[in-house]
């Protein structure tokens, strides 16, 4: 059964040391929940970026919430390097597990299908693979002479978190074309979602909306959070706020600038978010 709570309660469900999966920056990033995690001073998170990280994970790193990251890349896109990430990796404040986009998708699909591993083409000879003790290269196990192939162990996050435009009262959530969210939810033990709004219509009641809907079966809790992806964009709701992200990129270049950012943009809003 999906429960309906507020964002602060949602953040409380994620304990210190949890392994969380976050979607890529172009949409559905649960920024308000990320701010909630920072506000409650969550520690030692392992973060899986699916497959690329950006401002969300940079904030979590800067705020000291993160122990380890797995990602194919972390960047602020047009706004350049993710400053807290690059600093933390070079100074070894966090452990970085370098991966590559399809390896993350594939390892989640392994959990989605309940198998311990999945094969992936390519990759062999990359230093990514050379530094991953958990990955295995085996000679074609079918014995058909296809040569060596990479096997990726299944990834099962404790929590998949994302922000969607819309949920219904049954707990079904719109994901549209962002199908990796489905695989992330299938793979994770629990899925926590924030939404712009909750509708009285049942999203599964007609085939058009059903096609882009994640059923409540996979969703443990939902919180309403208007503007919950801001300053990032949300498909069909709002564009990313380029100025705000540029300001963040500039401020986060230094420790003190980042602290100022937290004070201005995160700790001030506690009251509002708790309602």
């Amino acid at each position: 059964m999906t429960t309906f709570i507020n964002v602060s309660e949602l953040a409380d469900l994620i304990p210190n040391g949890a392994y969380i999966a976050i979607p890529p920056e172009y949409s559905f990033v649960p920024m308000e929940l990320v701010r909630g995690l920072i506000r409650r001073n969550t520690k030692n998170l392992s973060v899986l970026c699916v497959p690329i990280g950006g401002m969300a994970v940079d904030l979590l790193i800067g705020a000291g919430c993160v122990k380890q990251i797995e990602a194919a890349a972390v960047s602020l896109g047009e706004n350049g390097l993710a400053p807290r990430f690059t600093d933390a990796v070079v100074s070894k404040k966090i452990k970085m597990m370098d991966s590559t986009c399809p390896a993350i998708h594939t390892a989640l699909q392994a959990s989605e299908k309940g198998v311990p591993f999945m094969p992936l083409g390519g990759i062999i000879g990359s230093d990514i693979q050379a530094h991953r003790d958990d990955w295995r290269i085996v000679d074609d196990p079918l014995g058909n002479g296809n040569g060596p192939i990479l096997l990726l162990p299944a990834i099962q996050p404790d929590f998949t978190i994302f922000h969607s435009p819309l949920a219904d009262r049954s707990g079904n959530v719109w994901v549209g074309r962002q199908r990796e969210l489905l695989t992330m939810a299938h793979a994770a033990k629990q899925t926590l979602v924030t939404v712009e709004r909750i509708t009285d219509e049942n999203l599964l009641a007609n085939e058009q909306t059903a096609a882009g809907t994640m059923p409540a079966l996979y969703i443990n809790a939902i919180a309403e959070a208007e503007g919950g992806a801001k300053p990032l964009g949300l498909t069909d709701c709002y564009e990313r706020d380029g100025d705000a992200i540029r300001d963040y990129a500039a401020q986060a270049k230094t420790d003190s600038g980042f602290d100022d950012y937290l004070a201005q943009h995160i700790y001030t809003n506690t009251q509002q978010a708790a309602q």
Partner: protein
Amino acid sequence: MNYKPEELLISVAASLLNTPDIQHVAVGAASPIPGAAALLAQKLGGGELDVTIIHGSANNTFTDGGRELFDCAGQGRVHAFFLGGVQIDGQANINLVGTGNYPDLERRFPGSFGSAYMYFTVPNVILFRPEHSRRVFVEKVDFISAPGVSDPGIQRTGGPKAMITGLCLMSFNAEKAQFKLESVHPGHSVEEVLDNTGFEIDIPENVLTTAVPSDEHLKLLRAEIAPEIAKTYPGFAASVFNIKSAA
């Protein structure tokens, strides 16, 4: 007609895409020049070239989530793709992770993205790096995000075909594991290329000068491609084409 450096690079990249082998080109994240080149090549080819620009939803028909690009490439349905590199070496190894002795890095860059897979599955990978310097074009990359060549026993249907820099166009010969200089951009010289490259290049006797974009192409680019690419890369379109996004 005058042209900007970016317009030359777009024109060169578009010319590489206009071959019958390439029916579908995909363009990854944060690649405005490759994106514009793909759209220009599509226009020049009368719309026969399928173009997928991953970043955003304009010119992106994928509906199966983030994995579709990679699945599509694994199926052999992506015929051309662009990759860059913080460092690129003479064997076409690319480094997108950082400099230093991994994991003890001096400088950290975003990471490998999908390069380690796309390089193996897309038959025409075009390396693209405007900064042509010995800092970028090194003898040996510090970290191999994706290897330029593989042993014969490794399943590999893709790999580097060419490299576009701010100075020149090179082709890549996978058997020799070597780049060959194809043409030098107008205003630059073979010596300049050699001076700024940290690895050996095959230099033919006669090196061509890169063809400048025709007036027709420039008009097309500015009138039709610029507003299209602005949907995905508003910042780039504003600075190069002086175009504002409608969004």
